[in-house]
């Protein structure tokens, strides 16, 4: 399984874990979704042609609007940028691959299958029709009852799971695998912007994951968060926009990175104020989490908070000013070559300037009051987000020769740019002119018809222009001129120092910047021993000082070759996709009649298809997970690398910490939701639903289990198999004790007290929902932890983990985290 078939083999594309292959898969899939979302956009434009006649029903129009937004933001923009990131970030930092190649493949397959789920949702009685912002309570089944609506929500959930894996992977790679001598300030600007992007993604997508889980719970299980009048609607607004505003920069930054690279390459100049550009990028990333309520100026938030949000919003426009001026001044005194990639990057700057200026209008609250919900907003964010994507098309032309080894057709490229740029402005500038039209409305004031018709014509030309690009790429791939390793005069970054396309493991020898510029050095590898670092002249030297050498000597893997193939990422994603497809129609397919006790509760299955899919998917998920764990997949960390600021942290541990950081936000969002709704309901009107004693006992049980995990680690270090088995066994037993007490508690509440998911004899039903969903999410974490613990237990019994205690240590990190979460849940649900 570890041998990678050649690129001509279909099998390769299902098993590959190589970052360049996956980059290509991402890019092509994203372009497919561009067409998908584009066709939906043309449907919208056709509907807008005449305000009095319709080609789509109101429902179908809303579905088109919703799916267009979701597809373009999630399934096109980000993955398109991350196609390049996959391919070029490892090359730019001098790594062989991303830190976790199988996780990278997993992210891609989750992305693909989530897109397929979204496609399927159109045929499940119609997809979601609540807008891409999915405002509550329109997003619950009472108002959007189709199975496809649930399908779309679950598709988004799956997409976010894939994104989370990808985020952890990029963070670990960039912080852990930079070539020797490449400090964090030395990284190329594209890599820098990707680094800022993934840091934002780590926290922003965790919030989306949480709010998506709550929505899925409302839709599939029947909890009542978003229909609650105790702040349910605003809860969605806050959580969604806490994700949604950073998301704007998440889709824009990869494009910004491309602009920063291309402006330098095609002017022959180095970036003006590079340090300040990097500082601006970091500032924006932090500030992006402090402006979300400017999307909610018209809700009931008070003037003080509005003022604060206005200030932060204007504040965030300032670093962008600096970025724009830096780009402009970089061009001056250069030797600007008007190639296709440069034209697209430069066009992107012009469009972004217009998008930025119109954004300042929106930052002034009084103007925002009137712009809210109109085409001004639509025009503005298309100029920013699609304007940014313009640079990504420039990136596609720029890197096409590197990926394929062939040169694209320059004339066709320029024709594409001219048609693209003109029609882009036709579509979106006309929206400014007809801005008083409300968003997502097709029966608009006929006064504005001329603008909308002009925009519709532009949209068709814009759509057509992409076929010039597709034709150009297809023709050049088949019969283009050979491009050579470095077709550009003034390129700087390392991807241009290797062949086109680069070899499987990227480098002829180990890349190093130790001497101040890129060199390929040959390390000395003694028989059966760890590599010895070469000095600047290419001679082997024994001085290292790199903390990582400890691991190299400790774990005997230097005689193995890195693996590049695994089918399990594909299989695991498929299983999850099947399970989620089943869940989309789950609540429509069966019904519970809750009786006096568990035995008296009856289950009626009206349609077995969906429940069967759930079971098949779930079994597949566990099976592929185990196979994944058992596979002998070797992805060594770079031996000599720059790791600031995480020197001395082992690769997998670093990844684990990043994952836990995102999980903190997930639970943080759930607990914030609980506090927000309770505050809106009147804090003191709620009493705990449950007795505090079972919760107290469970607190002790979990804390004890944290100690037993530490014992397991200690015994593993001492190579005592019995000790590891005993302490892991104790952990598992304590975990099951926790679950048993939890089940008793739930059973008691459901059948004896009558507190059910959407039913609360003491007061607000939403209180019951919050109790079950929050403690349920924690329970799922415990169950997953137990599955991993059992896996480790069996493997220990077979004799593993005595030479390498790291898997036990990393499981321990997760388990401690789950215990700490409980320490927050306990007072909130059992004491006060």
């Amino acid at each position, binding site marked *: 399984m570890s041998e990678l078939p050649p690129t001509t083999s279909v099998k390769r594309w299902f098993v590959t874990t190589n970052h360049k292959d996956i980059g290509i898969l991402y890019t092509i899939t994203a372009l497919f979704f561009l067409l998908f979302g584009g066709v939906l956009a043309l449907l919208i434009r056709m509907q807008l042609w005449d305000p009095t006649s319709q080609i789509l029903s*109101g429902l179908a129009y809303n579905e088109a609007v919703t799916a267009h937004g979701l597809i373009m933001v999630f399934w096109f923009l980000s993955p398109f940028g991350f196609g390049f990131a996959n391919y070029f970030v490892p090359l730019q930092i001098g790594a062989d691959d991303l830190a976790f190649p199988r996780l990278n493949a997993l992210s891609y397959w989750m992305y693909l299958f989530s897109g397929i789920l979204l496609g399927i949702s159109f045929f499940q009685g119609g997809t979601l029709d609540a807008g891409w912002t999915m405002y509550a309570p329109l997003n619950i089944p009472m108002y959007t009852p189709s199975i496809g609506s649930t399908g779309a929500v679950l598709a988004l959930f799956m997409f976010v799971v894939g994104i989370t894996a990808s985020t952890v992977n990029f963070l670990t790679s960039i912080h852990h695998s930079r070539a020797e001598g490449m400090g964090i300030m030395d990284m190329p600007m594209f890599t820098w912007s990707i680094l800022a992007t993934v840091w934002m993604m780590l926290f922003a997508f965790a919030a989306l994951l949480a709010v998506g889980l709550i929505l899925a719970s409302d839709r599939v299980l029947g909890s009542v968060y978003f229909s609650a009048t105790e702040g349910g609607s605003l809860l969605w607004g806050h959580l969604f926009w806490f994700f949604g505003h950073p998301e704007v920069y998440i889709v824009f930054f990869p494009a910004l990175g491309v602009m920063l690279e291309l402006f330098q390459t095609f002017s022959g100049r180095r970036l003006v104020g590079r340090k300040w550009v990097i500082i601006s990028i970091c500032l924006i990333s932090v500030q992006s989490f402090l402006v979300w309520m400017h999307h909610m100026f018209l809700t009931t938030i008070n003037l003080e908070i509005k003022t604060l949000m206005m200030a932060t919003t204007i504040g965030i426009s300032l670093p962008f000013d600096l970025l724009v001026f830096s780009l402009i001044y970089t061009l001056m005194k250069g030797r600007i070559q008007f190639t296709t990639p440069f034209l697209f990057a430069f066009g992107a700057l012009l469009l972004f300037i217009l998008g930025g200026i119109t954004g300042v209008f929106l930052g002034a609250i009084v103007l925002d009051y009137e712009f809210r919900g109109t085409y001004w907003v639509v025009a503005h964010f298309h100029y920013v987000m699609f304007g940014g994507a313009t640079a990504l098309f420039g990136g596609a032309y720029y890197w096409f020769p590197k990926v394929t080894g062939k040169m694209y057709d320059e004339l066709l490229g320029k024709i594409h740019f001219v048609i693209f740029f003109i029609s882009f402005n036709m579509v979106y500038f006309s929206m400014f002119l007809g801005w008083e039209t409300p968003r997502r409305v097709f029966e608009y004031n006929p006064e504005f018809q001329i603008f909308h018709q002009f925009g519709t014509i532009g949209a068709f030309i814009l759509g057509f222009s992409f076929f010039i690009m597709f034709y150009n790429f297809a023709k050049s791939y088949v019969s283009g001129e050979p491009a050579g390793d470095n077709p550009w005069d003034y390129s700087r970054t390392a991807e241009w120092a290797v062949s086109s396309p680069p070899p499987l493991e990227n480098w002829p020898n180990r890349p190093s910047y130790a001497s101040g510029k890129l060199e390929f050095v040959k390390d000395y590898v003694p028989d059966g021993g760890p590599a010895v670092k070469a000095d600047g002249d290419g001679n082997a030297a024994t001085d290292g000082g790199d903390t990582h050498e400890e691991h190299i000597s400790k774990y005997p893997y230097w005689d193995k070759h890195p693996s590049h193939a695994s089918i399990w990422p594909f299989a695991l994603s498929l299983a999850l996709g099947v399970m989620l497809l089943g869940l989309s129609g789950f609540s429509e397919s069966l019904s519970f009649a809750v009786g006096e006790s568990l035995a008296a509760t009856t289950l009626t299955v009206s349609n077995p298809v969906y429940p069967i899919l759930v079971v098949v998917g779930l079994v597949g998920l566990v099976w592929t997970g185990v196979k994944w764990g058992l596979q002998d997949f070797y992805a060594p960390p770079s031996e000599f690398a720059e790791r600031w600021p995480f020197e001395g942290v082992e690769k997998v541990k670093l990844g684990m910490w990043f994952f836990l950081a995102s999980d903190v936000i997930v639970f943080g969002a759930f607990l914030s939701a609980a506090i927000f709704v309770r505050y809106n309901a009147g804090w003191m009107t709620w009493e705990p639903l449950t007795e505090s004693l079972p919760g107290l006992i469970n607190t002790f049980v979990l804390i004890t289990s944290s100690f037993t995990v530490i014992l397991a680690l200690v015994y593993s270090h001492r190579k005592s198999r019995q000790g590891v088995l005993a302490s892991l066994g104790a952990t598992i037993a304590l975990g099951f004790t926790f679950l048993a007490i939890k089940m008793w508690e739930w059973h008691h509440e459901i059948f004896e007290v009558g507190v059910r998911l959407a039913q609360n004899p003491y007061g607000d039903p939403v209180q019951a929902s919050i109790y079950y969903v929050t403690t349920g999410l924690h329970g799922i974490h415990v169950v997953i932890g137990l599955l991993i613990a059992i896996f480790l237990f069996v493997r220990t019994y077979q004799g593993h983990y005595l030479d390498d205690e790291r898997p036990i240590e990393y499981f321990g990190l997760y388990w401690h985290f789950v215990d700490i979460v409980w320490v927050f849940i306990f007072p909130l649900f059992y004491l006060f």
Partner: protein
Amino acid sequence: MIDSLILQQGSDWRAQAEVFDEIFFVFLALGTLVGTIVVAYTLWNVYKYRDDGSEPKEDFDAPEVGELPTGQGGPKAKKLFLSFGLSAIVVISLVVYAYGILLYVEEGPDSDEDNIEILVEGYQYGWDYEYPNGHSETGELIVPADTRIDISVTSRDVWHNFGSSELRIKSDAIPGDNNTNWFSVSSEEVQAQGGEATYTVECFELCGPGHSAMEGQITVIPEDEWESWYEGTGNESNVEGAASVNGAAYGGVSA
């Protein structure tokens, strides 16, 4: 204060539409000016520094593949901060100016007359209005001129947004929440429109398949006419049944 200078024109206070038009004009003028200067300057320089095939100048230091960016001198950034500072001044002064007006819009003008408070309730797909005396109307809101109308907006089902482009007012209608706003129309305006000024109300937040057709109307009539109409309303209501049954009757607008 800036706002008092702008807002105190004679003894009259200003309607939101007037305030909006002024700020919008200022922003548009400055935005166009700044945008034109920046874009023109950029285009000129891009043309000026194009690669015309001539020999590179002496100080041209071409980058090389594999160089570390921090290892090179790099161009000076003095100009960058000058431009940055200028743009920051423009943006911040614009916002301070707009903020003064925000305070006015939030507060609303003082009124000698008694304000009229109307409860507005959105539903799929229309608007109900309730007057202080308990009288209700569906679709059309009839109010007097020269009076400050305070609206309290909420929703019976999903999130809507009550807005009138011509009056430049807008409020989110959120279930379980009351959102306040105000507007007023002068009697001159009512006279100009022939004794009865009408304004279209639209929904500005996607609320379901009937969102497009979710319209209502605000009718402003002279104060004395309104008084006599209001006297006669008593307690009987004009609400057309409970028209909000989910999914039924799109565009149930009586106007």
